[in-house]
């Protein structure tokens, strides 16, 4: 039975944060409970609500200017909501507790009991992983909330954990809409997501995003959502707050010729897990991650797309199987 044991492995991208610093989680942490004001701002991301409260009027206006296309409707529906209190922190405190890993990663994550601690250069946050307690986000400057390295970095992590808990996945991917249905092209940094998205835009197609899109289960199949998380293409080049039925997922690989190849189930799982930012470095989320990736890989056509850098999107569309063209 020499060939009975089979392993397939892949490295995860290192550009994201990882739950990598268990020691750092025990360091001192901001304790300030003072809000910036009494305003709030709610975003709808991938069918979830993210409500930031304790804002000053200036902060609310700044968030509206940045995320206006994603303003959530009043909470009359039953959508899951993550409440986040935005709190004040002293700048020297944030800098004094700077994890060493921030020299390598834009964010550092660490588990602390039932919470996830998030650190960036200008933010600290605590995300509850159980129960209904509000999350807390500390910033030192009032307008830092409008800085994408603060609000976007925080929301990326919160959305990744929220999607996972709801049976879905955030995926490093380019999302392209063809004939009213979305197709995700997953790949790590450098795989060609932005290049493909540019080609799709040049071909007159709607692009959901060139960096991170959400795949969420729904009663009628899987759906994908544009998110306000800008890649190299920039947020304004993409379709804001859009939602489409998800038709297929392709693993994107740069190659000398354009072709579509079959992908075995274990490689589908591998590709989806590698492409799921943040949660794929949290060992306590592996069961949910494997479950959701397995469900998505079984529900939709998923193949390997080799794409030549110079080919226009028409050449790619020509090799996509029927459900993708």
């Amino acid at each position, binding site marked *: 039975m020499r060939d009975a044991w089979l392993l397939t492995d892949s490295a995860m991208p290192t550009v994201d944060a990882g739950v990598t610093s268990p020691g750092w989680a025990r360091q001192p942490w901001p304790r300030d409970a003072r809000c910036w004001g009494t305003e709030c701002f709610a975003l709808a991301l991938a069918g979830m609500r993210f409500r930031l409260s304790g804002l000053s009027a200036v902060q609310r206006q700044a968030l509206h200017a940045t995320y206006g296309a994603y303003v959530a409707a009043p909470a009359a529906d039953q959508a899951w909501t993550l409440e986040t209190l935005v709190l004040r922190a002293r700048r020297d405190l944030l800098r004094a507790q700077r994890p060493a890993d921030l020299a390598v990663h834009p964010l550092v994550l660490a588990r602390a009991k039932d919470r996830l601690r998030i650190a960036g250069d200008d933010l600290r946050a605590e995300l509850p992983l159980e129960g209904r307690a509000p999350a807390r986000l500390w910033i030192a400057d009032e307008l830092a909330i409008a800085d994408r390295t603060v609000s976007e970095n925080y929301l990326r992590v919160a959305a990744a954990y929220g999607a996972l808990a709801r049976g879905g996945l955030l995926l490093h991917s380019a999302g392209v809409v063809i004939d009213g249905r979305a197709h995700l092209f997953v790949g790590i940094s450098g795989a060609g997501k932005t290049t493909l998205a540019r080609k799709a835009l040049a071909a007159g197609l709607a692009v959901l995003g060139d960096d991170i899109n959400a795949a969420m289960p729904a009663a009628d199949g899987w759906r994908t959502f544009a998110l306000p998380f800008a890649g190299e293409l920039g947020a304004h080049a993409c379709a804001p707050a859009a939602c489409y039925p998800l038709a297929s997922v392709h693993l994107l690989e740069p190659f000398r010729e354009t072709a579509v190849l079959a992908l075995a189930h274990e490689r589908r799982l591998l590709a989806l897990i590698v492409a799921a930012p943040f949660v794929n470095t949290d060992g306590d989320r592996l069961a949910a991650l*494997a479950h959701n990736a397995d469900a998505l890989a079984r529900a939709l056509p998923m193949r390997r797309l080799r794409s030549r850098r110079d080919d226009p999107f028409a050449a790619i569309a020509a090799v996509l199987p029927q459900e993708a063209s």
Partner: protein
Amino acid sequence: MSEADALRLHPRIRYRAVGDELGVLIHLERGTVVTMNAQAARTLGLIAELGSRAAVVAAVAAEHDLAAAQVDADLEPFLAELRQQEILR
């Protein structure tokens, strides 16, 4: 159990069965994901549970009704790959 017989998984790995056919492993220190077939996932579980090469070989031999010596020889490339990927310490 001798030191040579001991099989110890790296403390920073997490793994899960996915249905009856696959397993998935995350190596939190190396930043790698590994998928594996059912036999590999089952054997990883035996390593975690039994911690001894002789015991793992005996269990696999019993499950497949094979001679222990044959299983021991066949298992070696798999263990070598686990060591190479630092899944085994």
